[in-house]
Structures are given as structure tokens and as C-alpha cells.
């Protein structure tokens, strides 16, 4: 997989994960192009499309579009299920995930993705194992954070 983008129906990018190196300019250009392309498609259309030398696989969950660009020899159907498994992970972690969860906890969304996919390949398909790793991180966070009263009071 070359990259994964999450964006809203309004075209706002919520998460971007690049597995190949591009400059920021190129990333922005690709994002703009793909967001327009995918948002322009009607429901019931095929979830796969050819785009430049790559294949694009996308799926909509509520207000969010998940969109992956994969190599020509990658498996399209299984890419749809990569998206679904990631949604399931988010859902399980946040408890019925919604777009706001991803906005406010964007770093968690990235951490979770790093456990699931690495270098553009599926690393761990077991939902249990991924969630266990994230739970361990959360535990550490709780131990480490000095839940101080001088936590920034919203002004930090």
C-alpha cells in the first residue's frame, strides 16, 4: 500500500498515512485530486478505480471516507477489509467511533494504525493483539502522567 487517507464528506482531511516518501507539495496535490475524485463518485459504484499507475480502493463509513492507494498487484478486496478492520479497531477502542473521536484523538488513530500496518503491509491482523498493545500504551500513559492540578487549565 502506498498511502491511506481519511477525509470527511466535506473533503476535510482527517488522517493521512504515507508509506512512500513524497514532498509535502506532492502529498497535498495527491490528496486534493483523490478527495475530488472519490467524493465525485456515486453510491453503488465500484469501490476500486485505476488512478495513475496505482489502484485506489475506498469505502465510506458514515461521514468518513477511507481511501487507500495500492500497487497494481495488491488485492483490492482485501484492502477493503484492511479498511474495515481498522474501522473495527477504532470502534472497539473508542466505543462506536465517530469523526470527532478521530479529530480529538488523532494521535491515537495514528498509533493504532502503526500497530496494524507497517511499511504499507499488514503487520498484525488479530484485533485482540492490536488492542492489547494499545491498552498497554494507555496504561503506561496513566502511570506516567502526573495528573497535576497544574495541568494547563485549558490555556497551556
Amino acid at each position, binding site marked *: 500500500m502506498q498511502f491511506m487517507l481519511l477525509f470527511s464528506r466535506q473533503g476535510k482531511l482527517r488522517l493521512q498515512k504515507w508509506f512512500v516518501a513524497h514532498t509535502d507539495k506532492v502529498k497535498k496535490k495527491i490528496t486534493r485530486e483523490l478527495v475530488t475524485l472519490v467524493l465525485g463518485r456515486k453510491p453503488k459504484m465500484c469501490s476500486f478505480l485505476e488512478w495513475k499507475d496505482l489502484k485506489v480502493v475506498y469505502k465510506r463509513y458514515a461521514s468518513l471516507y477511507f481511501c487507500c492507494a495500492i500497487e497494481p498487484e495488491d488485492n483490492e478486496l482485501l484492502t477493503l477489509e484492511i479498511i474495515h478492520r481498522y474501522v473495527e479497531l477504532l470502534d472497539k477502542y473508542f466505543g462506536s467511533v465517530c469523526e470527532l473521536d478521530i479529530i480529538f484523538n488523532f494521535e491515537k488513530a495514528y498509533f493504532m494504525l502503526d500497530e496494524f500496518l507497517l511499511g504499507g503491509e499488514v503487520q498484525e491482523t488479530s484485533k485482540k493483539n492490536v488492542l492489547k498493545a494499545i491498552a498497554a500504551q494507555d496504561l503506561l500513559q496513566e502511570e506516567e502522567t502526573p495528573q497535576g492540578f497544574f495541568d*494547563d487549565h485549558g490555556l*497551556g
Partner: protein
Amino acid sequence: MRGLAVFISDIRNCKSKEAEIKRINKELANIRSKFKGDKTLDGYQKKKYVCKLLFIFLLGHDIDFGHMEAVNLLSSNKYTEKQIGYLFISVLISASSDLMKLVIQCIRNDLVSRNPIHITLALQCVANIGSREMAESLSIDIPSLLVSGDTIDSVKQSAALTLLRLLRTAPELQMGEWTSRIIHLLNDQHMGVVTSAASLIEALVKKNPEEYKGCVSLAVSRLSRIVTSSYTDLQDYTYYFVPAPWLSVKLLRLLQNYPPPEDPSVRTRLTECLETILNKAQEPPKSKKVQHSNAKNAVLFEAINLIIHMDSDPNLLVRACNQLGQFLQHKETNLRYLALESMCLLATSEFSHEAVKKHQDTVITALKTERDVSVRQRAVDLLYAMCDRTNAEEIVGEMLEYLETADYSIREEMVLKVAILAEKYAVDYTWYVDVILNLIRIAGDYVSEEVWYRVIQIVINRDDVQGYAAKTVFEALQAPACHENMVKVGGYILGEFGNLIAGDPRSSPIVQFQLLHSKYHLCSPSTRGLLLSTYIKFINLFPEIKPQIQEILGSKNNMRNPDVELQQRSIEYLQLSSKATADVLATVLEEMPPFPERESSILAKLKKKKPSSVAETAIETTKEHKAMPAAQINSDGQPTLQISSPSSAGSADLLGLDIGGMSAPVDSSSSGGGGQSASDLLVDILGGPVPGGIGGGVGVGTTNGLDSSGLTVGAEENFLKFITKLNGVLYENDLLQIGVKAEYRQNLGRVGLFYGNKTSFQFTQFTTSISCPGQLSTQINVTEKPVDTVMEGGAQVQQMYNIECISEFTEAPILNISFISSGSNQKLHLKLPVSINRFMEATEMNADSFFTRWKALSQPEQECQKIFKATSSQDTELTKAKILGFGSSVLEGIDPNPDNFVSAGVIHTRNQQTGVLIRLEPNKQVEMYRLTVRSTKGSVAQTICEFLETQF
């Protein structure tokens, strides 16, 4: 991090873009002052600010500070601080940053820390950035993690994929001797480790398949364990009742890097796996959820990819094709799309090509009814891939029809595909011309130069289609609005071949000229230039309209045209037409000579436009046809004036015979049936079924068998069949059929051989040569046109031989053919069906002159007589037909015995004519014949007698 949450909601509450930017700038100023302030920030605060910067960056704003603070976080011993630091670095630091050295140092510290969660963070960072510098600095540390015994599973997983990323960045990277052990990770207990390792192993295999060959059997046995497990066995690695779909797909992909396993037991096991996967596709679904069917079908499609890759098991290929056939009508658009795509590959396999063709109607329906253009595009690709000689007319017809309403985005590609198919599978070039003109009519804007260059080239090279082309373009130009490309093709073709239709008053020279000139003012300068060349060619073809043309050339509009090319052409053509003599004009403006053979530039264009869509089989396509004149026609599309020597046109028409029927191998009226197989078509050209006996003794495996004379078995018998006929099958075995069509006049002959490839795969290195044993080389001249060395499956290729009889001869020239079919070398040595009687013209004479001549040839050496037993029916009509077929006359009422046949002919050699008289006396009671041949030359009498003896 409450501060972060507050900041994010502030941003979300911003009513306008300006308000958002204002809020962000305020935050950036705040963070900048915190970072610059004297008060040292604690780790938590640093983390919080770095995280805010990250958020701002992800919103799409530029961040130009904070990198140092993030790098500082990397060396924190608090996990969450380190984690945010790494996230910032992964997302925001470019590989060329000055800080990279520092970052790599921190990564190395974490990698050796022995703390698995720190190691994992460091690995993830490397995998996310994957720069060359990282690859070079960490090429020792990471592999050792992967193969070390005390690395925990999750770290191994990350290490495998991090390594993969580094290998992609720096493929040449050498990473020590750990590699041999790596394939054994496929046996690991932990499914997650196997899943990660499988991706790495595939990348290594791509680099060096030989070194990792051992992974094949490991992958097969792992795959086998997965596909035979029940969905409860693999616990959390089962996804919606499908056992380990991700790992299965990775293993199936890994195996696509190798040919089918050599070890029979491994191969059997793999076949069983693939069969199991195909069987499961037929089972009722275990869940109605789309995830279940997606995961199951993902494995199925990957299995089909492997089956296609191995391309060795017809059973699996046909089963795969049937499965995909079911998907073609599935309610899920995604499945229809993928089925069309996979079928394209199946269509290129000899084993499944026919099975794919069964779905032609469904695919055509998809082309017409699918609502999603990307699916329709797949349908076009599949039709292109499944097209062959049997269905070309129908498929091209459907594609042309669809082109009228096709999406603009795919029109150009469709035009190229239609043009290629029409050329590749044309058996009748009038059809080809019709298709291309239709393309211009329907989608003129999308017809590129390559396409219209090509049609002109083919028309010029094929004299059997020139008259038709002239007539058709003339009709097309009569449409009130016709595309400029039509004007170009029409102008060029009428300029070359307008004379062929000038006899019809409806397309008389002046009508042709006026029709073209009515378009002149609507055309671009380059087309006008082309038309001016057509006009000057008209002056040569039709001197009677010279004044009208000179008037146009000399008009102010042309002589003073602001376009310098048009001005120059007008002036020069006008001068040429008024100064040059008719002879000079005729030489300068002679018909274009044939174009040299070259690969179709249309195909090259399609390849360039869409490399993936030109399936392997299509790539070798059109070599048997003539290719495009890029160099011959100026790059701006204007025809060059060709000054050629008079001999170039003469040689082809040596005999002035009408060979129209021979150049078009299949009569258009008989090629209509879409279901005919290639061999049926071959039979058709010969006007009847292949006689049962031919090739009967030449079964499989004996194709290389030679008889005592060094000829292929059966060659002699087949040669003798042509003693009394001109056309028929010269040779046939399981691979190849050779048909003959011949014409003779006086001492000249033209023999057309039609080589038909009866298989569905290519012959390569196809070469032919003629050898003339003994004196024969001085007695006859044989010149041949070479054939293309590649002959496509199902293709028919024609080869012409011109033969001149210098003096009488007895032996036949030997035709040597060699080619490679499916890797095995085939050689044939046949007799070219050329015998002395072919140069004989039948002579009519009355009884008096017959007997006068008969008596004049009374020297013993002038007569040859044979008495022999009849080997076939003595039916009178049959015998008569054989004598006529032999080339001599049947003279009635000369012999007093009406059962006897007398016959006369004259043999033409280069400088001599030799009379031959024949008398054949059948004795039906004893089934015997007496044959007497008299000739001025005894050797001729001898030869004729020997040939005739074999025929009765």
C-alpha cells in the same frame, strides 16, 4: 492533554477560515515563546506543544519550528513523550533534515535498549520514514533483531516490515548472512510473525528467487494448513469465518514469483489447496456480512492469479474461468469489476481462452449496461483480450456501436483498440477499411494520426483493397459534414487510386476533384497541403481535368497564401504541371511503392498510453502486417511525392493477372459465421473440405519423419495430387496446414501458399526456403516473398512464389519449412507442386491435323508408352476432368473408339514451345490403360507420360 483538546475545539468553533488562521497564529506565537523562554519546559509540556504543532500541521499549515523539541522528546525515558516525539518526527521531518543524524542516534539507542516497547517505537519510526540514510546506518541492528532468539514476537513483526521498507528504499543493501534463516519464519508459531515475514520474504524473493527457493515448499505447506483448517482453529486470525485471509493472500502472492513447484508432492499439495479454495467458493456463505464474502473472495481471486501465473493446469484454469463467469452477473459491482479484470488474464492463456469466449455476450451486455465507467472500461479491456479471428467481426462491431455513446475518457483508447483488432484479425481487408472509416465517422476527434496513417499504408500495400477503398472514401466524403481525418484519408487514397473508380460517371475525375475541393476551405493548412498533393496526382491520373486543377493551384488564394507551405506547394505543383512532359509527370507522380514492414505504431501508442492493458499476447500481434509509415509520411501528415524507379511497381504484376481472389485469403461471404474455428476457415479458402486422405498418414510425432528420399512422409503423394489440379491442401498435420492456389500463363506461374497455424499459440522462427535439386536450378527460376518469422495462433499467412520455366524439367523444387512450436523444432521438406505440365496450354485441333502431327512424331525416342492397371475409377467424366486438370485439351470425335481420349497441348519454356500429343485407351474389362505420349522432345514425352500414369 486537556490543553490540546481545548485548542482543537477552539479551532472547530471557528466560523471562518480567517478566524481559524487567527487562532492558529495565536497558538503558534504562544508555543514559540514557550520554546524560546528561559524557563525550561518539562517533558509533559514539551509533549503537549509538539502535539499541538502536529495538529496544526495536519490541518494543512506549515510548521517551521519545534523539530528540536521533538527530537529532545525521543530521548525521554517516558514512553508517551517518546511516542509523541516519534510521531512528530515521522510525520514532519524530511529525510534531508539536519536533525536526521540526531534522530538516527536516538533510534539506535532505543533499538539496543532491550525495552520492547521502545524498540517497537524506534522500528515504527524507521518504517515510516524509511530514508536511505537510515537504511545505511541501521542495516546491522534491524536484521539481528529479526533472527535473534530472544526477540519477542511483536518486535519481530515490526522488524520484518521495517526491514522491508528499508529494502525498498535501498534494494542493493547487503544485510549479512541472516537471510538464509529468514524463510523459516514461515513456520513460526505466531501467525502475526508469519504474516509480517511473508511480506519481507516476497520482497527478498523478487531480488533473488534462486537464493530463497526453499520458501516454496514452506509456503505451500503453510497455505495448506490454513485452507484446510476450520475457522475456529485460528481463533483471532480468522476473519469473519475466513481463516487468515491476509496471510493466505500473501502466501499466494509469494508463490507467484516462482514457476509451478517441481517437486511432485509439493505440486500436488498446492493443486489441492487451489482446488479447496475453488470448492469453498461454491459453498453457501457462512455469514451474510460483506466482510465474509470479501475476505473469502480476496483469497479466491489471489488463488486465481496464481493459477493464471502457473498457466499449466487446464482443469484449474477452466474452473477459475467458470467461477469468474458467475461473478460477471453478481449483484456486487466490485465483484463484477474484478471478474472482468481477472478474465482478461485468463483470455491470454491458451487453456482458458476458449472458456473465456463463452462469456462474450455477458461482457457485451456489461459494456452496454454497467453504470460505472470504470467497470465498462474493464469490459472493453476484456473484449479486446478475448478477441480472435473467430469473433473479431462481432466484437469490433459491438465496440464500434458502443463508441457512439462511450465516455469521453475512454474513447481514444477504444479507438486504438478497435483499430488494432480490425487490422490484426482482418481476413477481408474491405472489412478493415470499413471499420477504420467508421471509426473516423463516429469518433473522428479521437482518431490519432497513427490510425489514419495506418489505414493508408495498408491500402497502399494491398492491391486487392484499393478499388474498394477508393469507392468507400468517395462515398464517405459525400456526407455533408465529414471529419477532417476523413478528408485526409479520402484525399490521400483518391490521389493514389482515384483512377480505379473513375470509370463510373458518378465518380468521374471531375466529380472526385470537385468533391474534395468542396472540403478544402474547411480544412486546416496541413490537410490543405495534403489535398494540393492529391490535386497534382490527379493531373497525372486524369489529364483531362488538368485545366481545372491548374486554375485552383494558380488561384490567388493559393499562390499568395500566408501559409508558406501552401504557397510553395501551389507554385511548385503549378510549374511542374505546366513544364514537365507527360512522361516526367508520370514518373514523378507515380503510385506510392509499398511501405516496408514495421511494427504497428498504433500498438506502440496503446502500449505507451496504457502499458498494463496490452496483454502479452497482443504485444506480438501485428508483425504479420505492414507497419506504419512514420518515416514515409512526413511528420506533419503530408504525403511525400515519391519518385520511384519504374521497376518497383512492375515486378508485382509480372503476369498482369487478376490475383484479387488470391490476396484475400477468405471470401467475405464465407467468413460470416462467428463460430467457425480457424481450421474451418482454412478449409473454406480451398472451396471444399479437406480430402480425407491428406495428412492421414502423418499423425502426431511424425512431423519430422522423412521418407527414403529425404522428404517429409506424404510429400510425394501430396505432390502428385497437384498434377491434375491447381488448388488444394498440400500438407496438413496437427500443427500446420498448407494450402495452395496457383495460376499459370505460358512459361510463367504464380503459386500462393497459405500457411495456417492450427494451434492457438505462436510459431516462431518460421522460415521457408526452396531448393532445386540437380539440374533443376538451371531449368526453372523460383522467386519467393519471405514470410514473417512469427506466426500467431490461428493465423493464416500467405506466401507467393513466382516461377519461370526456362527449359523443360522433370524434378520438382523442394520446399523446406522450419519453425518452432511450443518449444519444439519442426522441419518439413515438401515438393512444391510445380510440374512441367503446368506450363502447358491446351490446344484444340481437328482430326486431320491431329493425325498429321501424330504421324510426324514417329521417331521411337519421340514416343513414350505405358500400360498399367487402373488405380481409381474409370468413369469417363472423371477421366476427362483429370486430363483437363492436367492442362491439355480433350479432343472429341478424333479417335474412332469413343472410349479413348486424345489430347494435345503446347509446353512453353522461355525460348521454346514443345508440342505434346496424348492418347489414353482404357480397357474397362480388365481395368487397364494404355497411355501413349508423343512429343517433339523425347524427354518431355517421358515426363508427361510418367506424371499421367500416376493419375488414373
